[in-house]
């Protein structure tokens, strides 16, 4: 039964017996009737005001209208992409700042994150739209939308990235440091890549929220989906139909993103790079002499073999595997 998989709380009840099944059937019937009733009521309400007439919906079978709205969707996606790039870059910087060893940097980053998370984006947009022009500072329309969104989303991204860094086992950075990497190298090469990979589902979910936020372009008159819907409805006077279609487009786009986030979240999706299996003794032995030619450019293996002649097998397997990545690179 799929319910067990889709509904983690299904252990709330045992597999129903005869009476349970009857109750579930009754409950299903009642809830289907109730839902259909609500739906019918809504449709009747719409129908009685002529909102279901064919001539109100027929315009939406024309490609021109869809094209008009899809251009808006393009604007939405463009703004979302810019905000995602700016926000995530700035967010990573902020996350690192919040974990910095320098106290001032830590405080500044924390202060920024707290402020940006607790101020409505609309307030920032009004500031960009009406406030700053009074001071002679003006931006193109796209940036009036993108800057406030990036300011706000950077803080959210920062918190996600920070959670990812903190949730990584400490051994990772300790191992990197003990290998002789500098702290910034350990962060850049070891900690951050793994942390980012672990928080990918949260980042994609945040992308959904960000894409929703670009609907604020409606206020700054930036050509995005909701704004196009508004212009279209002012033109064709089909308010309900237009905004329902716009809502549907948002639902499809964000729904696919959400589904992606859900898929990424599923356990067992992690494909850790699998270490190359160590060749078996039998596989290495026939090539035991062959790698000798490579030993000149492999001083570690040569020294190892020379200092410990008894352990010729591991040395051979060492040098036998060594050429493989080299060959692949060549």
């Amino acid at each position, binding site marked *: 039964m799929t*319910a067990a998989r889709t*509904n*983690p*709380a*299904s*252990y*709330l*009840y*045992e597999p*129903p017996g005869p009476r*349970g099944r009857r109750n*579930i059937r009754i*409950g*299903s019937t009642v*809830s*289907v009737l109730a*839902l259909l009733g609500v739906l019918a009521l809504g449709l009747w*309400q*719409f129908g*009685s*005001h002529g*909102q279901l007439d064919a001539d109100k919906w027929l315009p939406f079978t024309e490609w021109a209208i869809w094209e008009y709205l899809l251009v808006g969707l393009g604007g939405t996606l463009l703004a979302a992409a810019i905000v995602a790039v700016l926000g995530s870059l700035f967010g990573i910087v902020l996350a690192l700042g919040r974990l910095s060893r320098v106290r001032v940097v830590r405080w500044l980053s924390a202060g920024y994150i*707290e*402020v940006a*998370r*607790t*101020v*409505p*984006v*609309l*307030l920032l947009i*009004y*500031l960009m739209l*009406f*406030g700053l022009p*009074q*001071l002679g500072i003006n931006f193109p329309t796209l940036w009036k939308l993108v800057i406030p969104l990036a300011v706000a989303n950077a803080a959210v991204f920062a918190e996600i990235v920070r959670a990812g860094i903190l949730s990584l086992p400490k051994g990772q950075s300790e191992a990197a440091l003990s290998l002789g990497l500098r702290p910034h190298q350990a962060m850049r090469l070891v900690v951050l890549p793994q942390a980012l990979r672990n928080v990918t589902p949260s980042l994609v979910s945040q992308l*959904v929220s960000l894409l*929703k*936020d670009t*609907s*604020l372009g*409606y*206020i700054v008159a930036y050509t995005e989906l*909701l704004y196009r*819907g*508004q212009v279209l*409805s002012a033109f064709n006077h089909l*308010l*309900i139909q*237009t*905004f*329902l279609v*716009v*809502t549907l487009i*948002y*639902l499809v786009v*964000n*729904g696919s993103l*959400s589904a992606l986030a859900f898929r990424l979240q599923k356990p067992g999706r992690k494909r850790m790079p699998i270490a190359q299996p160590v060749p078996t003794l039998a596989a290495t032995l026939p090539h035991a002499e062959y790698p000798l030619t490579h030993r000149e450019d492999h001083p570690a293996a040569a020294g190892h073999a020379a200092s410990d002649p008894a352990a010729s097998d591991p040395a051979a397997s060492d040098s036998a595997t060594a050429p493989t990545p080299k060959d692949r690179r060549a």
Partner: protein
Amino acid sequence: MDILIENLELLLQALGTTLMMAVVAGIGSLILGVLVTVARVSPIPVLRAAAFCYTQFFINVPLLALLILAVFALPDAGLLLPLTPTAIIVLTVYEAAYVAEAVRSGVNTVGVGQIEASRALGLSLGQSLRLVVIPQALRAVVQPLGNVMIALAMNTALAAAVGVVELTSRVNKVNLVHAQPIEIFTGAGLVYMAIALAIGLATGWVERKVAIVR
């Protein structure tokens, strides 16, 4: 500061609207969200599917689109309520989806043993949900619910876009008259931060009170 004090009465009135919207929508969304969660974990497949669709719909559609739909479009279908109540209803049903997601993750944290024990004691499904599962689920997700409530308080600002005169809208109007953007918007930002801080502190207090020590 002068401008803020000069317009204090108007601004306080607007702040009152913001707070009222946040409180009413907050309580409403908590109740509705828990109901949606109950439907989400019920043994009736239709209800589960309906609750799933509900949360997915509201999590994937922008609040602003819903507000515009409800305020400007639905009157064409004869569904006309005063402006502020409409905004509050939209906020409530929108945030209820987030509440439902949070509470559902709380339900998943309730130990299987708890549920088995309640079944063994002979509680019906409704009883075990009402008396055992939901209380523990809510206690486990105080912090996430606090975050949802903070987001709700921030989202009341969007009502300004459809014409509700709340804090953001009023601040913008005051600024258009006095042209002191830095001072005025900073003041408003501080007020919103104070609201978020208050919710955060309240959340922390509630969490300490109800946390389950295992």
